[in-house]
């Protein structure tokens, strides 16, 4: 076996503009879990010791470092923890740790950044912490998780630089508008 060197998807320093901070995130291990037909209860039982369950559509469950995010029909992403033993018997399990790039967007106005890129309503009243969505970040596939302090943004690792550029550009737009209007 050759020795593989783990590298982050992107080597970029955090950017803070208009009170919003964009940074590359490392949520840890990411695994897609898709229960086999009729195995939903078995999967929920395996997730229980982690303090999690199988999430309903458009939601995410968090317990300490562990979280599970609904991704598509019959599939969720288990994040931050190894897969519980025995899961392979109850669900299709695929490691996505190296396949996805993660970004954190923090700040009270974080939703304003995504409002320019994501075609769904992300205001806190409609999309509170614990919400998750599968949508598009401009033209890129997106898994979005609402956190207490902002958003966790997941997209394909191959699009990491583009995603960073798009988010960064919006931050500059907002900062420029603030400067002109204040």
């Amino acid at each position, binding site marked *: 076996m050759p020795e593989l060197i783990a590298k982050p998807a992107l080597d970029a320093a955090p950017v803070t503009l208009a009170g919003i901070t964009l940074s590359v995130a490392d949520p840890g291990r990411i695994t897609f879990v898709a229960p086999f037909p009729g195995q939903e209860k078995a999967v929920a039982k395996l997730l229980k010791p982690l303090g999690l369950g199988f999430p309903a559509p*458009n939601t995410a469950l968090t317990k300490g470092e562990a979280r599970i995010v609904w991704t598509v029909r019959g599939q969720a992403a288990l994040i931050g923890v190894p897969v519980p033993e025995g899961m392979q018997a109850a669900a299709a399990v695929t490691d996505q740790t190296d396949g996805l790039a993660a970004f954190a967007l923090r700040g009270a106005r974080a939703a304003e950044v995504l409002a320019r890129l994501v075609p*769904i309503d992300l205001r806190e009243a409609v999309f509170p912490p614990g919400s998750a969505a*599968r*949508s*598009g970040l401009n033209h890129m596939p*997106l898994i979005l998780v609402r956190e207490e302090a902002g958003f966790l943004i997941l997209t394909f690792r191959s699009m990491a630089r583009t995603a960073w550029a798009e988010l960064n550009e919006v931050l500059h737009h907002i900062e420029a508008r603030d400067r002109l209007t204040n």
Partner: protein
Amino acid sequence: MRLNCPLCGSRDRREFYYRGAADYLDRPEPDAPPEAWDNYLHLRDNPMGVTKDLWYHDQGCTSWLLVTRNTLTHEILDVKLVAEAGE
């Protein structure tokens, strides 16, 4: 135009891909007569009013959707998951 995805909720048209008439759900048996296959592959109604077609939520939950809409009023009457519509 917006579609009310049964899983994701109300979403913009750009998240979806249009496949065509819902006739594609009724695939003939392999030994069906050529007329049935001709009908399945090529013959489409062009209704003025209520029609059913297939949409794919490709930038969302990746579900196939059975959409009932009105070609006269552009009203979306119903959106169902294809996976559940057949049960």
